[in-house]
């Protein structure tokens, strides 16, 4: 474990990413401490420029809401939705992929048809449709994002299972008499952990982008202030205030960048080194 941490943090990008993400998490966690009132409250004059008023450092939007408060609460929403929808998608993906990869034949065929279907359909469009039909709420958003994100995990897990199933140590497990459920759980799954972790971390980034896109289009949960929503609001005021979309956009970009860097760092740290053969 220690070796892994060393390798991971040696990667400068990964270290920077972790640092950034910790800041975002900290801001989100302390949002209610820093800004006691709801970010939806109109607290000041509209359209105050950033860095002009010390009380509202990042300025206010067209309804007089504090942008900094919006950023802080938005951090919560983005991270929460990103992580939860990814967890759901990964769980479904592992289930589908493991069954398809281990049992093969018609189980594999049926599950792969379903996977291909969900993968071919344009993801954002489907998410939009789902959220629109079931009315935007935290649950429908998480559900919609999870529903369009699980196919790559399933494909990955299936591919790993199919490769590992023919690997000799799995055959050895059969030969010594282990049951299939034990083989799947103790022999195969632990060896698929690395690629799943890497994929999951990159998926979280995509989930955050998708959530912000949905909020931008007006499909966000009305009770939750989201960065995407703030950019959507800024779009209507483009000529009057060109800076309004700057902060939430930067917030999204830096968060997604941080997660991507962490994902790449995980990939480098978890991948086994090239083995040397010999006596």
């Amino acid at each position, binding site marked *: 474990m220690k070796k892994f941490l060393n390798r991971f943090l040696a990667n400068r990008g990964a270290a920077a990413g972790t640092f950034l993400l910790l800041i975002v998490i900290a801001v989100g966690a302390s949002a209610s401490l820093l800004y006691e009132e709801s970010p939806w409250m109109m607290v000041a004059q509209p359209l105050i420029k950033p860095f002009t008023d010390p009380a509202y450092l990042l300025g206010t939007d067209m309804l007089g809401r504090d942008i900094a408060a919006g950023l802080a609460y938005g951090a919560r929403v983005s991270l929460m939705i990103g992580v939860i929808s990814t967890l759901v998608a990964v769980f479904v993906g592992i289930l589908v992929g493991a069954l398809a990869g281990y049992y093969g034949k018609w189980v594999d065929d049926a599950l792969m048809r379903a996977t291909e279907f969900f993968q071919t359909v344009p993801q954002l469009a489907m998410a939009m449709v789902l959220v629109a039909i079931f009315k935007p709420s935290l649950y429908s958003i998480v559900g919609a994002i999870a529903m369009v994100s699980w196919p790559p995990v399933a494909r990955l897990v299936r591919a790993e299972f199919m490769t590992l199933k023919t690997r000799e*140590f799995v055959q*050895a497990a059969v*030969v*010594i008499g282990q*049951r299939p459920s034990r083989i799947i759980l103790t022999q195969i799954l632990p060896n698929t952990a690395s690629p799943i972790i890497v994929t999951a971390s990159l998926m979280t980034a995509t989930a955050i982008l998708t959530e912000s896109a949905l909020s931008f289009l007006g499909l966000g949960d009305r009770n939750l202030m989201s960065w995407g929503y703030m950019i959507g609001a800024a779009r209507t005021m483009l000529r009057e205030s060109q800076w309004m979309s700057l902060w939430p956009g930067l917030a999204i970009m830096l968060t997604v960048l941080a997660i991507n860097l962490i994902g790449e760092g995980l990939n480098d740290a978890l991948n*086994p080194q090239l*083995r040397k*053969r*010999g006596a």
Partner: protein
Amino acid sequence: MTKNTLPPSDPPLLSIRNLSIALPSGGDRAYAVRDISYDIHAGEILCIVGESGSGKSMSANAIMGLLPHYLRPETGQILLGGRNLLTQDEDVLRSMRGREMAMIFQEPLSALNPLLTVGEQIAEVMRVHNAYPGEARERRVLELLELVGLPDPAAIRHAWPFRLSGGQRQRVMIAMALALEPKLLIADEPTTALDVTTQAQILALIARIQRDKGMGVMFVTHDFGVVAEIADRVAVMEKGILVEQGTAEQVLNRPRHPYTRRLIGAVPRQRASATSRNAPAGGPVLQVENLHKTYAMGGGLFRKGRVVHAVNDVSFTVRRGETLGIVGESGSGKSTIGKCLLKLLDIDGGQMLFNGQDIAPLSEAQFRPKRRNIQMIFQDPFASLNPRHTVGRILCDGPLASGVSRQQAEKRARELLQLVELDPSAFDRYPGEFSGGQRQRVGIARALAMDPQLIVADESVSALDVSVQAQVLKLLHDVQQRLRLALIFITHDLRVAAQICDHLLVMHRGRVVEQGPPAQIFDAPQDAYTRQLIAAMPGRGWDPGAAILNSDSLNDTALASQFP
């Protein structure tokens, strides 16, 4: 055997002087090769022999200038035709590659571009050096394809590499290398990935071409049989140092350096001595009758697929304390038999009587409690142990699955570690920390943990270096004798089979073509294929055992007892 015993009188074609190549820091030693020197003359074949990690391929790559950028030659010279290759700049080297020196590699499939036809790749050599312009180029391609013995050159010219067999691809590589008639040919383990019969053909081809063109050939290999077959001179490498050099006759029959002697001593002897077995064989453990396994290949909506008989009507018996060898080339069905016996594959016909009971029709659930009686040792030491489990856990899993208590299982595991001569601390370590030979010992221990009556060893020593192979074979033999196990040994290496097996089965395309004790198979083969197989063994006329006994220095008893 040796061909050219006259000492070379003309100046050497290639001369390596005091070459040292440093390894980047953190490697297992400071130098990939250290202070090595050797010459190659026109018209002779020099074989560079060594185990993996000996650095034998390093000098070959250095000559061609193909070393990766983190491996730089530190000192020394490489003189080809008077020019020091290490001081030339890239453009000069590039113009020499293919024209004055050429190289062929080990894996012919990955060494050819899958998206270009064979003819295009051969023509490329000429195109790049502006040789044979116009129509002459196509003619030359056909000429070369014929020279290397490929059938129907006009058609094969347009073939994709993946359509050819391994032997054919290697011939294409040779054709590419010879296109511009270079003076020096470097062959880096070109036959290691090929079947024995194909290997024999390629070796003959290389020898013939070398003779006809008077080229100097540097042949890198780990197989002493190959050395005995074609070498004029031999250089032996150990961990980056050149330990012995001389004519083939000298090195093979009167080796001087202890390492060379150890290597030659480890080469499996052709004949098993009569004292190898302590006790007579017992009753039959496994009786296989008319085993069949077929595969359906291809097929689709509009086409019928092909049916391949991987195992075709195979019958044999194995007794307690007896070793049965199943020998064959790739595609002969030998590995398939192994998997069928362990019920890793379903069979399509026949019976497998284990202690009288037919296990073939049993379902997986019915068979599972019986699995402890038949165990397997796998081929790849790197893939056969779960990299995320400790050795201790790997050894305990089997007994635990059959209901033994954890304490019992762990105690047994530690006993087994001792039995296979591994340090007891191995219990808590991960496979990644062990060498190939050590991992195979763990594999043996795992198979023994179940107290089986029958063990199937599927090419269990094929991935190991020759000296390690000898140790593992000895261990297997000792264990079998002590525990009176029945052992089925599957291999493609006739020598290994001859050394440890009491009874041999020769397989060809799914059928058993001949059976019998090794002495009979080798001295009086009945079937045409068996004869072909034996004739193809490289270096048949050379007796490694005699070489060890003939030598002058002390400490021979250790070597001689390496294998009874």
